[in-house]
């Protein structure tokens, strides 16, 4: 299973348009179509996992709290000796990594198991701060940083992708609809835009999750 399909849970949850407060610059809320694979190093498998990721066009696996971008995929630290590997849609990532890693790592396809929201704009930090407990101030967090932390009460991976600031918010697909509602509610006092003008190459919108890229 490699094709990236729309998340059925999200159908109709994020419709294009501008919502919430009408004045000022809105944040942009959307989803990112990509492949996600969880890799966990097995005992004594660390070096072989790193070699496999590098050979597949991935980066040096980043330390806790960080993400790294490779030629063909990004790696997000999520737990001790565990990372989420992210690549563009239809990359066939899980199969390639499972073959490359062999017994060195547990490789688990998560493309359909997780949903990636994008939140961008000058006030994106303020929206996220309503929902999570980590310090997102630039002196404590920044582009390339990752935090595994509950968003409201829902397990999430927060990845700052850009200085704008822009964030990827990765949650279990089964919670995607609840998280869409949470993000919309948190963004409403500031105003938010779904779809429309593009920023950072992301395609926004409810269930239109095709054709965008990870970079």
């Amino acid at each position, binding site marked *: 299973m490699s094709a990236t399909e729309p998340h059925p849970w999200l159908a109709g949850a994020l419709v294009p348009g501008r919502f919430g407060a009408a004045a000022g610059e809105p944040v942009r809320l959307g989803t990112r179509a990509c492949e996600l694979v969880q890799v966990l190093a097995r005992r004594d498998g660390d070096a072989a996992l790193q070699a496999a990721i590098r050979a597949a066009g991935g980066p040096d696996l980043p330390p806790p*709290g960080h993400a790294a971008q490779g030629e063909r995929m990004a790696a997000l630290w999520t737990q*001790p000796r565990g990372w989420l590997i992210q690549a563009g849609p239809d990359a066939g990532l899980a199969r390639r990594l499972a073959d490359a890693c062999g017994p060195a790592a547990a490789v688990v396809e998560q493309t359909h198991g997780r949903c990636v929201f994008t939140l961008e704009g000058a006030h994106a930090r303020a929206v996220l701060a309503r929902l999570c407990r980590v310090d997102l101030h630039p002196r404590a967090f920044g582009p390339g940083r990752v*935090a595994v932390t*509950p968003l409201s009460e829902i397990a999430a991976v927060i990845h700052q992708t850009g200085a704008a600031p822009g964030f990827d918010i990765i949650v279990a697909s089964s919670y995607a609809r609840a998280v869409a509602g949470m993000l919309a509610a948190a963004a409403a006092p500031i105003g938010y835009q779904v779809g429309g003008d593009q920023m950072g190459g992301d395609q926004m919108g409810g269930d239109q999750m095709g054709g965008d890229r990870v970079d």
Partner: protein
Amino acid sequence: MIQIACPYCGPRDEAEFAYRGDATVHRPAEEAGFHDYVYARANPRGWHLEWWHHTGGCRAVLKVLRHTATHEVRAVGLPADRPEPPSA
């Protein structure tokens, strides 16, 4: 609300963690010691070495030295660490 400085994730609020009990008890080799191992706890007023599971973050199980009266967290380590309670 206490804060625990996870060695992996940095300082995080108590709400991200699950308390997992006394970190000083050891599984006995003999069946005879099992009642105390499972049920007997010292419940000290003072420094206490305990397990906290970072369930909302990196999922690591941490060893935390906490004062049961003031809730001050003096040390946070990994399971192999042996933080010493302050003598005072």
